């Protein structure tokens, strides 16, 4: 008789009662990986998929071939990146606060992941389209999406471009390259592929970018997107934000035996790279490379952004129930804002004082808009949206039965 087989159940390195432990995470030195040619093939991308592209070293110096690749970027671009991230933090801070005060029902931060969306977005062109998850408000911030629209949606008041239809954080903006967020995980990854196919078919020179969390890579749409992208090779960038957690579930439950998410993508014949997502320069460099590649017609590419979800999953979540309270501080890749700041100071382009001042300025700017937007109504003090909006846009033209229902409702 065979002895009983044991199933495996992946575990995080530490639970609340434990000390944070990231000893199993390998962080290769900055500058170790080269810049591949734009027509990189999946077979040739093994080292990129299993390694980790890093530009900023521990001292804050930009080193290696990827640093050279973006050496032409002027200081203003980097300062803008820093401002984007600081603005994002200010927005997250103010809106978390608003939720705590009961002014909105729900909020969700992206703390620790600011470099990824901010850096990527600044490399896109107008007309390119992101298919984001709910944790990529960075894409809006770095696209200079009006804060009034963003916050209007958080308060579901008359400033809300979606007129209260969607959860606060599920934004949508065609003009700012931000596809309507669904809320069902994964679904939009394959839509990004379809959009990019349409880009190619219509010859508009634009590209699409799909976004997915590490947990959501388990979804069927992750597979269908990688497969379809690999078959038709449209200009799409398939971003995977690996922030180690999916609500309470450790990333290992989604990785399974795969070495990395990038490696899984490579199995589909899509070249894949793994990048330090807390390194604004690495993000910028790889985004630039990938976007350039896609636009040149070399087909899809997958990028695993390696990062850490510092905050709770959302305001409905309390991570102290499933991971050590101080785990974020132990994260070996540091904080994206601190690292870029350090780099800019090292270059002589920035200082602690200017940083503190910029933080304060941005917080003021954000707070001012917030105050203004709040005068249009908040959750505790609502200025009701017309219930008739419920029936608006279900179809292009309202069919009879919806007319009857709207009438029954009294509108």
């Amino acid at each position, binding site marked *: 008789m065979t002895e009983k087989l044991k199933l495996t159940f992946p575990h995080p390195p530490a639970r609340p009662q434990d000390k944070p432990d990231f000893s199993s995470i390998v962080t290769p030195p900055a500058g170790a990986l080269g810049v591949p040619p734009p027509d990189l093939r999946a077979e040739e991308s093994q080292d990129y998929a299993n390694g980790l592209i890093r530009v900023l070293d521990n001292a804050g110096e930009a080193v290696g071939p990827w640093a050279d690749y973006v050496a032409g970027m002027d200081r203003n671009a980097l300062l803008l990146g820093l401002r984007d991230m600081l603005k994002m933090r200010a927005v997250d801070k103010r809106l978390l606060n608003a939720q705590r005060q009961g002014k909105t029902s729900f909020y969700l931060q992206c703390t620790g992941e600011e470099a990824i969306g901010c850096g990527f977005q600044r490399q896109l062109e107008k007309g390119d*389209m992101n298919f984001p998850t709910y944790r990529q408000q960075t894409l809006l911030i770095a696209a200079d999406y009006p804060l009034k629209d963003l916050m209007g949606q958080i308060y579901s008041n008359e400033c809300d471009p979606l007129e209260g239809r969607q959860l606060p954080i599920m934004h*949508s903006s065609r003009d700012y390259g931000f596809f*309507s967020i669904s809320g069902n995980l994964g679904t939009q990854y394959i839509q990004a592929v379809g959009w990019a196919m349409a880009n190619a078919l*219509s010859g508009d020179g634009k590209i699409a970018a799909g976004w997915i969390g590490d947990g959501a890579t388990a979804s069927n749409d992750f597979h269908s997107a990688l497969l379809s992208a690999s078959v038709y090779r449209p200009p799409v960038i398939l971003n995977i934000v690996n922030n180690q957690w999916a609500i309470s579930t450790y990333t290992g439950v989604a990785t399974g035996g795969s070495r990395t998410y990038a490696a899984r993508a490579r199995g589909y014949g899509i070249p894949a790279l793994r990048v330090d997502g807390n390194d604004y320069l690495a993000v910028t460099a790889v985004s630039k490379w990938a976007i350039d590649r896609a636009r040149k017609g070399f087909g899809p590419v997958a990028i695993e952004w390696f990062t850490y979800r510092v905050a709770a999953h959302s305001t409905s979540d309390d991570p102290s129930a499933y991971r050590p309270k101080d785990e974020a501080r132990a994260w070996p890749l540091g904080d994206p804002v601190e690292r870029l700041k350090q780099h800019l100071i090292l270059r002589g382009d920035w200082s602690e004082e200017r940083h503190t001042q910029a933080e304060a300025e941005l917080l003021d700017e954000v707070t001012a808009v917030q105050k203004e937007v709040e005068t249009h109504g908040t959750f505790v003090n609502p200025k009701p949206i017309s219930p008739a909006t419920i029936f608006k846009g279900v179809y292009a033209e309202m069919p009879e039965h919806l007319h009857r229902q709207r009438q029954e409702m009294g509108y």
Partner: protein
Amino acid sequence: MTRMTMIEALRDAMDVKLNDDPKVLVFGEDVGYFGGVFRCTAGLQAKYGEERVFDTPINESAIVGMAVGMAAQGMRPCVEMQFADYVYPAYDQITQEAARLRHRSNEMFTCPLVIRMPTGGGIFGGQTHSQSPEALFTHVAGLKVVMPSTPYDAKGLLIAAIEDPDPVIFFEPKRLYNGPFYGDHSGKSVGWAQHPAGEVPEGHYTVEIGKADIRRAGSDVTILAYGTMVYIAEAAVEKCGIDTEIIDLRSLLPLDLETIKASVEKTGRCVMIHEATRTSGFGAELIAEVQEACFWHLKSPIQRVAGWDAPYPHATEWDYFPGPERVIRALQKTMED
């Protein structure tokens, strides 16, 4: 005017639209080079090239998911599910994505796409080639749901569907692909070439989505049917002689309640027929609407003739299929009271 089978009419509709509008795309499993397992798209790839008409991997949610992205970007995809029985992997993309995109984005993004699928039984296809899942789509706000019963309507409705600004679920009663079917599976089948409804105009025309068709005027009972069941109704009425008004709904969502109401107010009696399983089928919705709209005119309970609440069987499919005899019994019952 030429006579066409329903397959030819559907193909002609796609041909017209592919020719009209460079944004129209046709794709699905085996749809490209081969032209589909029912040959509905035969010849279209050769005519329009594989950028317009192409084969996909066997992944229904990928097909619809790609189509959603394309439609949002401005294309007009018309995709095929090889059988309606295989639409379920795409159910999430259809009901949570395509159906709601316009609404949830406050019309910033829209989703004009058509999902065609061969539907219904009567071809000894067993439980995975016979299903009629229309009720699973009529429950979903944001979708339109149609099912033609003639080559003429098939072409006109498909052109209308491709031109519609919203997602349309397009059911094709496969038992009618090559000719009408009056319920006698052992009898000689007559092709569309022998049937007046096989007459299909050339070029562009549409049949409005949301309008029913009175297939037979009558004064004693109203039958509500769609797809294959329209002919079953005709056969039953022919046999039993009850003076029945037969309404071919054509469009289930939106529903042409006016036409239905006018008929039932006149006849006072109503039988509805579908091939799908009875419980929570679209017939339930029809009955709910009719009893509310026509309560004071009803002389007897509305009768439901539907597939049994069991998987579609293979060998005993003609015992499952709601044939003319069951319709006659329902007509008689509704007249008794």
